[in-house]
């Protein structure tokens, strides 16, 4: 059965109140057409896990502006003033996480790990509510894994099996999120036949990808 489906069918997998991971770094490597399709839908109350909330007009930030998001778990909101405004007004819950911790929480979620110990955040408010563990005299925070119902990712070249190559700096959080979500949807810039991507260049194994959209380029 083909994994290639329409944008509308893909977005049908996302329901109100779900937690979704969105690949990309300030919109670079984000699945822009999938985001636009969610934007046009009535889906609401989403929890978004993403590196940042991008810009009001670009990337996952559009969903915040469109009030489809109830909570974001992210490292940076400074480029999207609407995220900050909704947070200050009490309309949006924002959990700010150090970028390396966020990446590792997502990795742990997909790697079967129950958490990990990081020195990042020691002595700051990031400590609050977390267990502190001392190893060889050095303090660490116990950070827990993150998982999502659906991941929507931006792939540069995707073959029909779902093997993904991410070009240059579009890789960022995408391969981590492909491991840690129940359903994985990749928006491809270009879709090719199985075998056309050099196996050495596959960054997400096709076995981890459930659906492929796009490929128009």
């Amino acid at each position, binding site marked *: 059965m083909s994994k290639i489906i329409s944008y509308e069918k893909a977005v049908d997998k996302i329901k109100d109140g779900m937690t979704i991971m969105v690949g990309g770094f300030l919109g670079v490597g984000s699945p822009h057409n999938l985001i636009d399709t969610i934007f046009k839908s009535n889906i609401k109350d989403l929890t978004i896990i993403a590196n940042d909330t991008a810009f009001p007009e670009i990337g996952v930030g559009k969903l915040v502006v469109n009030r489809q998001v109830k909570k974001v778990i992210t490292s940076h909101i400074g480029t999207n003033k609407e995220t900050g405004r909704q947070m200050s007004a009490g309309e949006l819950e924002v959990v700010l996480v150090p970028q390396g911790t966020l990446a590792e929480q997502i990795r742990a979620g997909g790697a079967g790990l129950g958490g990990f110990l990081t020195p990042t955040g020691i*002595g700051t408010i990031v400590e609050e509510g977390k267990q502190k563990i001392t190893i060889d005299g050095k303090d660490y925070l116990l950070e827990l894994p993150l998982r999502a119902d659906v991941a929507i990712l931006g792939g540069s070249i995707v073959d029909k099996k779902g093997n993904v190559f991410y070009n240059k700096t579009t*890789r*960022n959080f995408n391969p981590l999120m492909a491991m840690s979500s129940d359903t994985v949807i990749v928006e491809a810039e270009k879709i090719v036949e199985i075998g056309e991507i050099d196996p050495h260049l596959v960054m997400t194994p096709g076995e981890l990808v459930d659906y492929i959209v796009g490929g128009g380029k």
Partner: protein
Amino acid sequence: MNSKEFIARRIAKELKDGDIVNLGIGLPTMVANYVPENINVTFQSENGFLGLGPAPEEGKEDKDLTNAGAQPVTMLNGGCFFDSSMSFSIIRGGHVDITVLGALQVDGKGNLANWMVPNKIIPGMGGAMDLVTGAKKVIIGTEHCTKKGAPKILKECIYPLTGANVVDVIVTELAYMTITDKGLVLEEIAPNVTVEEVISKTDAELIIAHNLKIMDIE
């Protein structure tokens, strides 16, 4: 020369041949313009690569190749890409020699606050907390006082911290200071600046180095 350029030029002199360096957004990014010609350093970009090069010529931008501020950049010969987990393993794991970051507040104990002003602006910490935790040397490049003239170098930071006891060096348009076990040491002052002026614009206690020097940016 404006004060930001002066600060960037002085920080550039801290770089050594073979260093891996991560520059924050804004003033720290300017340091790349003044790397001494006789050394090679590799810039790391936390969105996922080593070998960060200058901005491309107009018309040659690549939408898939940006820095951590989403600006188009280039990659130098020998660079490589990776995902965010590897990027922060490089940062947290102690493989970055120097990070240069800005500050809202920094104090004599080496505490840094640069990610939020309570009840005002909360951009988030991005990669800064990991950088100050993992980089071998943390250099703060900042103007000495706020736009309103208030000291930014305090006895103790008031804003929420990015990291506790993490800063090694502070460079401003007035002074070059190091954080030691004994406290904040004034090592160098800018040309045409007096020690008294630096003290008056610094809230933290300053220990004046015995061999106080003039900041050299040439």
